[in-house]
């Protein structure tokens, strides 16, 4: 029996087992391929959600920031009042007619600067002896984000309430950079089961650059998730600047005294007021997807950049 089985097994006359083995192998390979393709399709859907979350994270933050910053106006009014007291000695030739000889014998000036930001109380600086006195560098406190940008474009601690500040234009300020972080406190609703996903995963970093002409470039990037991938979006806010100035001179007083036989002194006090008003507001002028990480370092958006609304 044993010999028979052995001979059957060693028999080379049939090919059924070979074909069966071949069929089994084909079935196994085809099955594995089909299963792998199916799993890959299911996995793609899961990755789609992660990719979409990055996209919605950044676009939501961008929408929020654009909504908060666009169309808001900051007004800065700078005023310089120079009060000049001039004493002139008049010599009258009484004997020979009305010939008058005027001689300025003294002139003193004082200045008062004020800077007013929106509805805030104005910040004044008095200079008793203009222009040799220097001011104490008064500044505003508790500024909002746009106030800070506008103030830095026009003024800074060094030249606040000075002639330099009076001559500065919003169209040519210093470049400013910083980072804003958009953070979520989480859902405030009672039901935790339908709550927002991990609030920290929704945080977005926004690098802002203010160019000398007042253009604000915001580059938003999501916080890195498990995949380590990021999505970046760049928004350009273009400024609309309106700067006006006016100057008025008024005589506050004019007195004559120290009368003598040969003449008198006249003291005239005048005030020259120079008012410069600068208004700035921003509107969203371009949104673009940042393609590479190196590109995310807040390079300026070209003028006329098309607004991109495609999802990733």
């Amino acid at each position, binding site marked *: 029996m044993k010999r028979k089985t052995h001979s059957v097994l060693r028999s080379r006359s049939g090919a059924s087992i070979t074909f069966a083995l071949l069929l089994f192998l084909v079935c196994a390979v085809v*099955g594995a391929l089909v299963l792998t393709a199916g799993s890959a399709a299911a996995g793609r*859907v899961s990755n789609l959600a992660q990719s979409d979350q990055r996209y919605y994270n950044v676009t*939501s933050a961008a*929408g*929020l920031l654009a909504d908060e910053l666009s169309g808001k106006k900051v007004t800065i009014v700078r005023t310089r009042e120079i009060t000049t007291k001039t004493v002139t000695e008049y010599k009258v030739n009484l004997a020979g007619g009305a010939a008058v000889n005027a001689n300025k014998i003294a002139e003193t000036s004082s200045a008062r600067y004020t800077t007013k930001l929106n509805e805030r109380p104005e910040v004044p600086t008095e200079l008793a002896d203009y222009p040799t006195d220097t001011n104490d560098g008064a500044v505003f406190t508790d500024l909002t984000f746009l106030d800070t940008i506008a103030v830095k474009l026009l003024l800074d601690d060094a030249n606040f309430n000075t002639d330099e500040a009076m001559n500065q234009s919003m169209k040519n300020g210093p470049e400013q950079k910083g*980072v*804003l972080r958009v953070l979520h406190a989480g859902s405030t609703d009672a039901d935790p089961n339908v*709550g927002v996903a991990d609030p920290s995963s929704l945080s977005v970093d926004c690098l802002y650059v203010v160019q000398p002409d007042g253009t604000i470039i915001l580059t938003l990037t999501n916080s890195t998730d498990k995949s380590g991938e990021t999505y970046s979006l760049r928004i350009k806010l273009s400024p609309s600047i309106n700067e006006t100035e006016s100057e008025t001179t008024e005589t506050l007083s004019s007195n004559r005294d120290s009368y003598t036989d040969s003449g008198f002194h006249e003291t005239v006090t005048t005030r020259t007021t120079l008012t410069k008003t600068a208004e700035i507001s921003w509107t969203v002028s371009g949104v673009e997807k940042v393609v590479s990480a190196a590109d995310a370092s807040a390079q300026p958006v070209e003028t006329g950049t098309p607004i991109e609304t495609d999802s990733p």
Partner: protein
Amino acid sequence: MMKKLKSRLRNQKGESIAEVLVAVLLSAVGLMMLATMISATSKMVIRSKTLTKEYVEQNNLLVEKGSSTRTGTVEIKLVDPLTDIETDIKLYDDGNYEEESASTAIPVLYYINNKIGNVSVTSYKKGSAS
């Protein structure tokens, strides 16, 4: 020719029943395995299709901001790049200047799509529950 045919018909060589049985068994197992795999994959694809459809429908609502499900607050902080310390920042005074800074928290409405497993997609916009 006739001789050759006759010898073939009389030939006793062939496959044993055991060999045939093993071959049939192997083939049956292989075919069953293939059928099961195709069936499982088919179920997987159908489920994936359904999920994707539901997900896309929910995402459309997300884009349209059509169905707010949750409310919350967002804070925008100014970060010191050297120390990574966050400080409160107020984006803008909408009305008159107030001596005391108003809260920096911005109320938002969240729109959530949790149709795919445990991954939820969240979008939000400024606003509060009416």
